[in-house]
């Protein structure tokens, strides 16, 4: 059902955990749906993502897409990272089963939320 890449990221997730004193936090999904993702980011010089970590409650696809999006976002500028689409995440994993595209591919939304959170905090300063 899942590709090798999905299974690899599910079994050996990259960047799992929480960034200490994060500059931005994004949480999407909810437990009633079975998927919750929490992305934390550390933003460095030139608005690049210096560190990014995830914590995810959810199925294999939810965990794998979370792991993948952190790998894709690391080192990118906020503008670049914001453009990571659901499709790009799924493609990087060699594709997802159709029903998972809809319900468990929230990781890029979580990243966008974390970036928005960072920007909102900057604006408040």
């Amino acid at each position, binding site marked *: 059902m*899942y590709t090798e890449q999905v*299974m690899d990221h*599910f*079994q*050996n*997730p990259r960047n*799992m955990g929480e960034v200490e004193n994060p500059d931005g936090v994004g*949480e*999407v*999904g*909810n*437990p*009633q*749906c*079975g*998927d*919750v*993702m*929490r992305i934390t980011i550390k933003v460095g010089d030139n608005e690049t993502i210096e560190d990014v970590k995830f*914590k*995810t*409650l*959810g*199925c*294999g*696809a*939810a*965990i794998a897409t979370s792991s993948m999006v952190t790998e894709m976002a690391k080192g990118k500028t906020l503008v670049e990272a914001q453009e990571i689409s659901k499709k790009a995440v799924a493609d990087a994993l060699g594709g997802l089963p159709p*029903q*998972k595209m*809809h*319900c*468990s591919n929230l990781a890029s939304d979580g990243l966008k939320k974390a970036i928005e959170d960072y920007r909102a905090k900057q604006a408040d300063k």
Partner: protein
Amino acid sequence: MNQDIFLDNAATTRTDPEVLEAMMPWLGDNYGSPATLYAFGAQAKQAIEQARQQLADLIGSEAKDLYFTSGATESNNWAIKGVCDALESKGRHIITEQAEHHSILLPCRYMEKKGWEVTYLPVDSDGLVDPADVKAAIREDTVLISIVHGNHEIGTIQPIAEIGAIAREAGVAFHVNAAQTVGHIPVDVEELSCDLMSISGHKFYGPKGVGALFARRGVRISPLIHGGGQEKKRRAGTHNVPGIVGLGKAAELARKNLKAESQRMAGLRDYIMEKIEANLEDIRLNGHRTKRLPNNVNYSIEGIEGESIMLSLSYPTAEDARAIFVSTGSACVSGTLEPSHILLSLGVPAELAHGSVRISLSRENTREDADYALNALFEVAERLRSMSPVYKRGAKQCASADSEDCDCESSC
């Protein structure tokens, strides 16, 4: 040797080698059809009649009241659609319950579309139907009551004999889906007072694709499948002779070992339940603690999701690790956005229903297998909980304030 640990035996079981052996001649040289009159066919006829008797002996019925089908799904469909069709002039009301298998619920919904009324009785938090509710739901125009014997997901065993007595007194046909109980616990159609019963071969070490419907003499039921004159013109189609012979053999073997096997399995089930409860915090037992199939264990594990448990167990990362096969009520496995309707019908919150794990045993499973599987389960639960953004040990995170205004459609 296959080192995998198969703990999904409510889904299907391994065909017993003796069953397979009994089937082989009928897959090979003895390919005659029982419906033909020459001697070659007569042998097959004799073989399926022997199987009918073997199955009848297992459930305490008359052999002539058993009709071979392709399995419990067909039997359930036939019981509902066939009785409704035959009794349409008497009334158009069916009684069932909310935690039934889809092969009961969907035929009922189909009948609703055709203008029938269906009462879906509630179950309590353990999954039990109250016989008093059945009694209260019976109307003048009720023609069929269908209640499962043992629930495939949560293992709860319904008070079938009590409901049967109520149905009989009211003169309403009573159907029981016994796919999970026949061959696993003693089942007797007289003691249970049922008029119709669905049976599945592959749930008790028989082959897939074969089952039966018990329909007591005098019960009015139209055929579901029309065609040739097989099964007294009630179920057309050339007999699945190897399958039927296998089903008969499985019934014979089950009957021989029933009580001892049932007790041994219940002992292993209780051992597993004790061990889970001693080692995992923040869990919920799904199904009744004692009125329970001897081979069923089902828990919801807070803060994690069932598919990821299932995947982790079935694809272990360590090289020499054994793969373990279980099942879950998570939406990810149901193919919809909703978790198991059965768990929801018990009042289990959606977030806990997503995190359910069913372990269903067979006679092949040993205590060593159970220990191995449970250690793996505890490790997986610990690992997934450490990844979960919502799990806090001992806290009822699923009762959090913001879960009340969850709009699942938009966020899932």
